[in-house]
């Protein structure tokens, strides 16, 4: 059982990493348009830790990330990310049991997160399905490659903070 200090240090590292990724999104990625859309890294930074830390820790971390996103980003309903991120994080954590945490699990969790967010957006924007899907699919496809550096970052934190554990991610 890790000590309180180790737990605080672990989540502080996850939080600082999420902050770094948020700064990259706000300062850099928002200025890039590939195939007409902006990369959207927020679901990745919120959901991928759940595949390493389990449903409880990952769910609470995703809830915190969701609150920050709702305070910073425009969305069709005021609590979109607060509701979607914890649910997606819990599902990600259970997906990680058979799949083992790693790049493939991160890719699936990203698809899951985007699917849930876009479902709510589709219901609120009332757009033509083909137009909506065009934007949603392009956004997902240009964001998926970012799963690799984000996963490597969080995997490094996991290895650093679980050095005594017998389980290791792929």
């Amino acid at each position, binding site marked *: 059982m890790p000590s309180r200090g180790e737990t605080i240090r672990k989540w502080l590292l996850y939080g600082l990493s999420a902050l770094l990724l948020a700064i990259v999104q706000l*300062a850099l990625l928002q200025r890039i348009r590939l195939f007409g859309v902006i990369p959207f890294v927020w679901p990745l930074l919120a959901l991928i830790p759940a595949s390493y830390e389990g449903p409880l820790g990952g769910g609470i971390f995703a809830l915190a990330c969701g609150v920050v996103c709702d305070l910073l980003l425009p969305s069709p309903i005021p609590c979109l990310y607060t509701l979607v991120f914890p649910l997606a994080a819990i599902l990600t954590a259970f997906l990680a049991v058979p799949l083992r945490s790693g790049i493939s699990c991160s890719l699936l969790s990203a698809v899951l997160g985007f699917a849930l967010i876009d479902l709510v957006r589709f219901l609120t924007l009332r757009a033509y399905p083909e137009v909506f899907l065009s934007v949603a699919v392009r956004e997902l496809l240009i964001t998926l490659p970012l799963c690799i550096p984000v996963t490597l970052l969080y995997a490094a934190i996991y290895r650093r903070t679980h050095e005594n554990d017998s389980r290791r991610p792929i």
Partner: protein
Amino acid sequence: MKDFFKQYGIWILAAAAALSLLLAASSLLPFTSPLKDLEGILFSPIRSGAGAVADWFNERQTGRQTVQQLREENAALRRRLAEMEAAVRQAETDSDENTRLRELLNFVQRRRDLSDLEPARVTEHAVTNWSETLTLDRGSSSGIELNDCVLDDTGALVGFVTELGYNWSTVTTLVDTETSLGARVYRTGELGVAVGDFSLMQSGLMRMDYLSAESLLTAGDLVVTSGLGGYLPPEVVIGSILELRLDEGGASASAIIQPAADFDSLVQVFVLKSFEIIT
């Protein structure tokens, strides 16, 4: 999985529900969240700096034209100049109509009631793929308030201030799905509501609803603000009609509008801080 939800699920759900209610309640309040304000203040210099770096880089890129390209361009321009001289001679015979339209669009001379303008530089275009917004480098410290309308240098309507910080503000453009304003067709006087539509937003267009099914509008008709209610100044150019569509049932019609402002190329805009209602 069942054990997890039995033990912790209800607490996480309760926390998420409580936070959602708080966020929903705070969204109804007429001020920007402190976290958003802090983010805007911290990133304002970065946006300006990143914009300057991008501008420098673009200037280096374009400065690499070769001498041969310049010679070809010069020859093409001479041919173009000859064509334009002929066009100018033709245009002189249409000067009466041009003078009338120029008076309509000559914002500075005509609209003395709209003189309280604050110039602002656009530092960012859009933060997500689902909204069409601009971030400006002016905020409450410059006297800007929420819902102030924003104009381009020709006096065309760009959008409205929807988020406000100390030294930054966010403008929701006309094509965004959150936009809805009273509009009037300048030629016929028909009233309607100009709204953003996500499907049209991808093409930089918007829609005007609640038009009569017997409407006599044609492509190219100018659409301006109606000014009804006093929230917006009247007769500010919104755009021009592209096509008219009958709604299902045929009882009413809607028009597709091409906004006059070019949102993608905007560098500087003007925030209308106050206006006089001239009766």
